[in-house]
């Protein structure tokens, strides 16, 4: 029984396999319409997330399966003080696979230790969000045709942004990747991640506070939201939230085939005026997210 807690739980070959299944689903959706008939997905969302939850649910329905679950901790037994371990032991009896989001870091790992069915980490605090990373990777593959020899800029909240951490982890396994870290000093990538990057020969990184200066060399620009819920102090949030806003004029120096990604939801860090630019790929990511979750559910359920 396999679970997906961190993107590093998957080998490079397994990621390739999932991406290839995703591409096949896009080409031949009818082939997959009944793959999960008779199977149930439980979505245990201890923290609100419309987007990710709906993506998992849509993925399971498109595979012919069923969905049960809850969408906030208040409507679950967690509000009565039940532990994650107990909740998962109970739900393991009802579902064939569980997608879990939890505000506490490590909760899905604890769940996977107690569950008798596969657990998919649908986001744990500021820690990991591997299915968003799979969506990002499928998008990069569809837009760029490769994961290697690319320059990827990460902009915004690199300290708490779990999607950034997971995608960087994934990219460290390919050759010739250059990472450009664009953030205010207060929201820089955590030291432990930079320590890990320092030890790798196949990847290089630079840090900058200027989005404009970094722009010309980027093949991919990964924008992130400065999330209010990750701050202990509201004054810090207000001071930093507008630090990096992508507007059409800032894109003038960008490559014509650069790909703009964003895990969404967007607040104001990408101007709506950018949406019509052919380089804007963030809504394609949403579609790719559903597709890759279909591929993942099948894989973890052992369905060919």
């Amino acid at each position: 029984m396999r679970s997906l807690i961190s993107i590093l739980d998957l080998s490079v070959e397994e990621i390739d396999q999932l991406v290839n299944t995703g591409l096949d689903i896009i080409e031949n959706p009818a082939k997959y319409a009944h793959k999960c008939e008779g199977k149930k997905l439980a979505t245990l969302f201890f923290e609100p997330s419309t987007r990710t939850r709906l993506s998992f649910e849509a993925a399971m329905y498109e595979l012919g399966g069923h969905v049960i679950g809850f969408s906030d901790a208040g409507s679950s037994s967690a509000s009565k003080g039940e532990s994650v371990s107990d909740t998962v032991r109970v739900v393991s009896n009802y579902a064939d696979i569980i997608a879990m989001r939890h505000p506490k870091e490590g909760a899905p790992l604890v769940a996977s230790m107690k569950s008798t069915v596969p657990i998919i980490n649908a986001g744990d605090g500021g820690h990991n969000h591997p299915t968003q990373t799979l969506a990002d990777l499928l998008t990069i593959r569809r837009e760029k045709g490769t994961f290697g020899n690319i320059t990827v800029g990460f902009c915004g909240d690199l300290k708490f942004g779990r999607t950034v951490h997971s995608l960087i982890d994934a990219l460290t396994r390919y050759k010739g990747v250059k990472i450009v870290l664009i953030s205010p000093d207060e929201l820089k990538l955590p030291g432990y991640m930079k320590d890990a990057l320092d030890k790798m020969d196949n990847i290089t990184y630079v840090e900058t506070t200027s989005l404009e200066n970094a722009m010309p060399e980027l093949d991919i620009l990964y924008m992130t939201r400065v999330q209010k819920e990750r701050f202990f102090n509201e004054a810090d949030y207000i001071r930093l939230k507008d630090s990096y806003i992508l507007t059409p004029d800032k894109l003038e120096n960008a490559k014509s085939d650069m790909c703009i990604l964003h895990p969404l939801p967007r607040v104001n860090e990408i101007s709506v005026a950018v949406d019509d630019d052919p380089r804007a790929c963030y809504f394609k990511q949403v579609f790719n997210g559903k597709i890759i979750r279909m591929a993942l559910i099948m894989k973890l359920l052992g369905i060919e």
Partner: protein
Amino acid sequence: MLVNPIKNGTVLDHISAGNGMKLYKILRLNELECPVAIITNAYSQKMGKKDIIKIDGAVALDLDVIGYIDPGVTINKIEDSVVVERKHLSLPDTISDVIHCKNPRCITSIEQELPHKFKLIDRENKVYRCIYCESKFK
């Protein structure tokens, strides 16, 4: 100063000077019924000064705890006044409930029964990370 040799028990040798009392407290040796001797600042050719703990009785020690606190310790098991086993400790690969995760966002902050487990990720610099949230222990 003279401390009698023990007949059956354990001697913790080569404890860095100053760590003897720390180990005594963490291993809760005060709760043992048998005689326990702590020698601090003993002369050592190799270390200059060292601490030694002698436990005159059978006891199961958590070697991971000792290895984490002081990886240079040597454990000598004594039977009928003869050293029958000698172990040189090193930093354990994993430790459970020896140190506690201080990250307020970690699942261990709300799941009371969960053991606080840490994994050694950098032996040279003695860096342990929580297995749940991956925070570095400081």
